[in-house]
């Protein structure tokens, strides 16, 4: 695994081979790449275009642009389809899980990267172990556990496992970042009369902000898109998150395709915006996370 420079997103190298290619071949290559990119993007484009169509147009001319852009599909999905409520649930669950993950992850990363104690190696090994566990194999025992804790069908039944499963990545990313920072800072702070908590809040947290940003972006995408936990732990209509509501949508509004398409677009748009803003961090982070796990 050492051959991969961890999380390096490719930068330019002077491309020597393209000099050999003649002009025409290079155009063919561009055409091929453009076609490939469009084929890749088409399912998503089709989703967004269809979300503005009327139901008749959805059937009659599936490949055409809408003749009239039906923006009310979105308002109907938001209000009648209950997507507004699901959106709010997804925001609440994702944000609370993120706050908890960041606080616990940064604190743990501070302790394991800057302080010395006996069981450090063992604790790190436990976190590695967690990254190897297929998430779906924990559904049944977690269901039983939450039932006996009495937290099934609450926000906590999502927030706690989301945080637990995101902690290993958070600890590794933040700890890796903190080890690159010189220790003199803390020693100076210590002499100034700060306790360990003071050092954590005044020195470590501000230092770790860039690593915490990466953890937030990746964590948000995971929490926002999670389906399996929501499917098993949430039953109340009022608590359903976006992916869970959407999966039930095709039953309830099976024939109202434009409504379903608008609902799906509402779920996807925030993740696409975040992707467009933080592309490089997302690519780096997802690759590094996958390679470590």
């Amino acid at each position: 695994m050492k051959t991969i420079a961890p999380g390096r997103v490719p930068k330019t190298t002077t491309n020597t081979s393209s000099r050999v290619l003649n002009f025409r071949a290079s155009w063919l290559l561009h055409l091929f790449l453009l076609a490939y990119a469009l084929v890749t993007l088409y399912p998503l484009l089709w989703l967004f275009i269809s979300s503005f169509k009327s139901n008749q147009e959805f059937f009659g001319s599936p490949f055409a642009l809408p003749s009239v852009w039906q923006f009310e599909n979105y308002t109907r999905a938001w209000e009648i389809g209950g997507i507004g409520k699901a959106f709010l649930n997804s925001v609440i669950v994702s944000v609370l899980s993120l706050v908890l993950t960041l606080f616990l992850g940064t604190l743990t990363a501070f302790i394991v990267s800057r302080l010395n104690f006996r069981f450090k190696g063992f604790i790190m090994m436990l976190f590695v172990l967690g990254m190897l566990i297929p998430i779906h194999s924990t559904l049944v025992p977690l269901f039983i556990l939450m039932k006996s804790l009495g937290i099934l069908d609450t926000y906590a039944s999502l927030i706690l496992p989301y945080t637990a499963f995101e902690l290993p990545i958070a600890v590794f990313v933040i700890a890796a970042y903190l080890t690159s920072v010189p220790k003199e800072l803390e020693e100076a702070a210590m002499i100034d009369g700060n306790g360990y908590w003071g050092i954590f809040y005044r020195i470590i947290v501000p230092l770790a902000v860039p690593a915490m940003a990466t953890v937030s972006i990746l964590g948000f995408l995971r929490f926002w898109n999670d389906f399996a936990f929501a499917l098993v732990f949430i039953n109340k209509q009022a608590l359903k998150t976006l992916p869970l509501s959407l999966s039930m949508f095709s039953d309830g509004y099976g024939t109202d395709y434009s409504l379903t398409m608008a609902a799906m677009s509402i779920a996807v748009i925030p993740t696409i915006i975040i992707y467009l803003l933080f592309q490089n961090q997302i690519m780096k982070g997802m690759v590094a996370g996958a390679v470590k796990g």
Partner: protein
Amino acid sequence: MAFTNRLRSFIIIGLLPALTIYLLFVIVPILWSAYYGFFDWKGIGAARFIGLDNYAEALKDPIFWRALKNNLIIVAASILGQLPIALLLSLILRKSTLFHRFVRSAVFMPMVVSSIVIGLIWGYIYHPQIGILNVLLEQIGLSSWIRDWLGDPSINMYSVSAPVIWANIGPYLIIFLSAIQNISSDVEEAAKIDGAIKGKWLYLIVIPMIWDTIKVAIVLCISGSLKAFDLIFVMTGGGPAQSTELLATYMYNNTFEIYRYGYGSAVSTLIIIISMILVLGSQVLMRKRGME
């Protein structure tokens, strides 16, 4: 002395909440599922200890083996679909021009889209009556190719593999791109002077030089394929007639549709064991190949 005591109490208080949540929700469940696997339990009432019966029943159930085979089909589709496409793209997408960056972003984009939405979109693409794939085939005069893509048990595993491949090329493209950039341009120049033509350059130089990376990618395909649950769940739910059942949907259906918690726990434990065997096994095999 006061100093070390303060350090010790800070470490304990600081680690306690994170470790509690982590152990309770990640590590303990695995042990629990191994334990409940020994019981006949419907979720309510008393659990009856039945030893290894659940495990034996799973291993005797042909549907369990079909689910395992379907999991392996997804693994094969990932390795044979994602890796060659990602490798090919990484060879031509090495520049940092706006256009190349655009194509890279496009290829990576499905990674951030909810797998439920991906499953639903592809469900519409494959739909036997209104699906755009069949409409397209009809419009271009290939009506004979029209199929019930998700309903026909002889092809539906391949149909569900397509979105799995489509959605997951991005990370492999990035992995291969950074590996290829580590090949020094000297090697490339030398190859060119030697007159190596494009195809040979790929086989003789690039693939051997990034072989370690390809091995990592294969291991990732194996562990990643276990995550196909969401997609298959919304597209087919494991049906029709359990023809697209995966280990995870098999576990889900047995536990939460017919309330056999003990059996579901046993299957969960088997999933962990199988995935460990697959991942560790592939790593061992790869290491041997690499030493030759």
